[in-house]
């Protein structure tokens, strides 16, 4: 589905992403972790062709992003960092707009269903300027899904959501993956959330990959780190993450 | 008296020979009699303006006249800048003077016609006309050319050609020449587009302007309402 090889990005003397390689398989929820400034967003921006890599290769669906950008991006839906939408447009207008951007005719029925799925149907025609941050996050997800992509790249999708919203988002991501066979690459600072939904996790630190594991393997490694003091299983990822990034 | 003295000095100094055979007063009386046949007229005409700083289309005008000295040029359609002195195409302004000195000043060929030159000097200081020179065709009793100096509007040279309405003393074509002032607006007022044409040096200072009136038809002595001239 996604193959990244030797991906590097330098801003002058500063190396934001350093020789990063990883693979995402179809149908996976792939967790992408790192501290602030670790290079997560830069990597995601390179995957979405927002930033040109200094070196490396990015292949989606067996095709290079640099030569098949249009075909690849038409199969990807994305939320990049905090989604700032058009405050003067409604949710329905956003979906119409992103449908057109994807080369599709707006389908109001489909859009209503999509808004129901993300819990925004009641406010479908309200201006985004009147939405809370959580509602904007939900709308951003709906925009990412409007063209029925096979791969979702979600950068901090639970930002600004209340606990119920976080739970809904978690469930939605899982269902997208399990029921619709979509692949999801998700970055989050909420390690417990990643732990609950991810099949596989990539951890980067200072632009370099420090670990890429399945959740099962990671749990096993964490137990070898003698983390028995931790009372709950959901802290395994956090403990493992801290052990890697604090070195 | 002082004016008469200067007239004599001028005439003697210039060596003009007064034609003893022509009595200017009689000639002018003959001309006036002819012009007096017309109490009023409404004429349809074409007006052509040729002034250095004016670019104007040909305009169709109606000329209204009512004795003794009312004259109005109105555009049938469109806009034209009519020189103020054009009112003097009505020669009654000159011929209607009551207190003046007329002097015969020789002859001159105008359009192939030998004309008598009559110089007229109003003696009343309140007259707008300060001096007039008429070139009169003594045979047809028509004024073919006049040079009229006024206090208000400067000097106008008016050339007239006659045709179908010659018996009424009404011309077919009038060419008015007059002095113009330089047209200039303060720089930056209009923020003009520079298309290169302004770089061609235009002559500075006062220039001569011309207005040509080509009369097509006259309606004579059918009455003209006074309101037209207001």
């Amino acid at each position, binding site marked *: 589905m996604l193959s990244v090889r030797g991906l590097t990005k330098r801003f002058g003397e500063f190396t934001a992403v350093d020789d990063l390689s990883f693979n995402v398989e179809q149908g996976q929820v792939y967790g992408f972790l790192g501290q602030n400034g670790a290079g997560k967003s830069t990597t995601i921006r390179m995957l979405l062709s927002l930033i040109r890599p200094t070196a490396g290769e990015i292949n989606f669906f067996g095709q290079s992003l640099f030569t098949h950008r249009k075909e690849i991006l038409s199969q990807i839906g994305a939320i990049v960092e905090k989604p700032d939408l058009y405050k003067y447009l409604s949710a329905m207008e956003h979906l119409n707009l992103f449908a057109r951007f994807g080369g599709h005719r707006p389908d109001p029925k489909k859009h209503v269903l999509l808004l129901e799925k993300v819990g925004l149907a009641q406010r479908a025609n309200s201006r985004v300027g009147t939405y809370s941050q959580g509602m904007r996050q939900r709308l951003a997800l709906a925009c990412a899904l409007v063209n029925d992509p096979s791969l979702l790249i979600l950068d901090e999708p639970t930002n600004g959501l209340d606990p119920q919203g976080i739970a809904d988002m978690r469930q939605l991501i899982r269902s997208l993956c399990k029921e619709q066979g979509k692949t999801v690459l998700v970055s989050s600072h909420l390690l417990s959330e990643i732990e609950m939904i991810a099949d596989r996790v990539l951890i980067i630190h200072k632009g370099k990959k420090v670990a890429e594991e399945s959740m099962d393997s990671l749990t096993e490694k964490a137990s070898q780190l003698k983390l028995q003091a931790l009372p709950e299983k959901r802290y395994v990822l956090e403990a493992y993450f801290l052990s890697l990034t604090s070195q | 008296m002082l004016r008469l003295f200067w007239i004599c000095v001028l005439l003697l100094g210039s060596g003009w020979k007064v034609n003893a055979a022509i009595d200017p007063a009689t000639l002018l009386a003959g001309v006036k009699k002819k012009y007096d046949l017309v109490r009023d007229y409404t004429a349809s005409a074409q007006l052509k303006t040729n002034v250095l700083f004016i670019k104007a289309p040909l305009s169709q005008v109606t000329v209204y006249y009512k004795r003794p000295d009312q004259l109005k040029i109105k555009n049938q359609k469109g806009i034209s800048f009519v020189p103020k002195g054009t009112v003097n195409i009505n020669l009654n302004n000159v011929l209607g003077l009551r207190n003046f000195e007329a002097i015969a000043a020789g002859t001159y060929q105008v359009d192939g016609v030998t004309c008598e030159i009559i110089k007229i000097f109003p003696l009343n200081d309140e007259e707008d006309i300060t001096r007039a020179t008429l070139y009169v065709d003594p045979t047809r009793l028509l004024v073919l050319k006049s040079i009229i100096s006024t206090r208000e509007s400067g000097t106008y040279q008016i050339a007239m050609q006659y045709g179908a309405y010659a018996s009424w003393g009404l011309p077919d074509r009038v060419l008015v020449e007059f002095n113009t002032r330089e047209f200039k607006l303060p720089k930056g007022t209009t923020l003009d587009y520079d298309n290169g044409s*302004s770089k061609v040096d235009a002559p500075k200072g006062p220039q001569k302007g011309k207005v040509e009136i080509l009369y097509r038809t006259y309606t004579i002595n059918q009455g003209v309402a006074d309101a037209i001239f207001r």
Partner: protein
Amino acid sequence: MFGAILYTELFKIFRRPRTYISFGAIAVIVLLVQFALRVNGTEFIRFFTDSQADTFEIPESQILNGYFVCVAILHLILIHVPLLVALIAGDMIAGEAQTGTLRMLAAQPASRTTLLLAKFSASTIYVILLLLWMALFALGGSLLLFGQEDLVVFRETDLHIISQQDVLWRFIAAFIYAALALTMIAALALLLSVFAENALGPIVATVCIVIVFTILQQLKVPVFEQTINPWSFTTHMLGWKGFFYVEKTSEGVTINGSVENPMALVRSGAILIGYTFLFVLVAERVYRKKDILC
């Protein structure tokens, strides 16, 4: 794809309340000028004709007609319209970068070149609609309020009387030319917008550039007249006025359908198109390679 993106860009422009400020401002200014000329039009005309008042009968009431009022309005406001164009075009990239929507757009399948050209085209359509709006109020409104007559155009050194049958096409040509000039301003604002991540910067920068070059032009000093001004876009932006400078015969009669020195207009138009092309080309090159970090 281009058509769909252009549609969405236009949709965004015309769903934004800010867009209508320009249309409202133009309507208000035009109405104010019309009101002022209705009340004090004669004095306004006397300002131009004062030097000739002793020589000619000035037909002031005829001069003050719908066409004259429209030209007066265009003289007064066309020089300020670049600000209204910059408000939209300067916001095109930088405004979206500022609000964070640019990264969402750039992550769409459409190429950046397509996106930029769609944004430029949308700005151009906005310019055209703004001018049509202006034409509706300035020309249509003035003709309704002041009636039709020959048009008198005053230049610093002469005046042109154009018969009314020969006027309408000149207005159409002038509006088309103004659209060309304002499209160039849109291209400039878009170019500056590509470099900025804050909408205010390109808007202010565009207006400042126009002001600086206009001042250089108005100074009329040889050092600028011979160097910068022949190539300054503000010089050529005034070309719309050229359609109201009419040619005359040797006898001083205007020639219907003529334009004084049409080659100068062609050259000015070509220079404006050249600048537009250059600005869009550079904007495209920069934007295509730009890292979208905001």
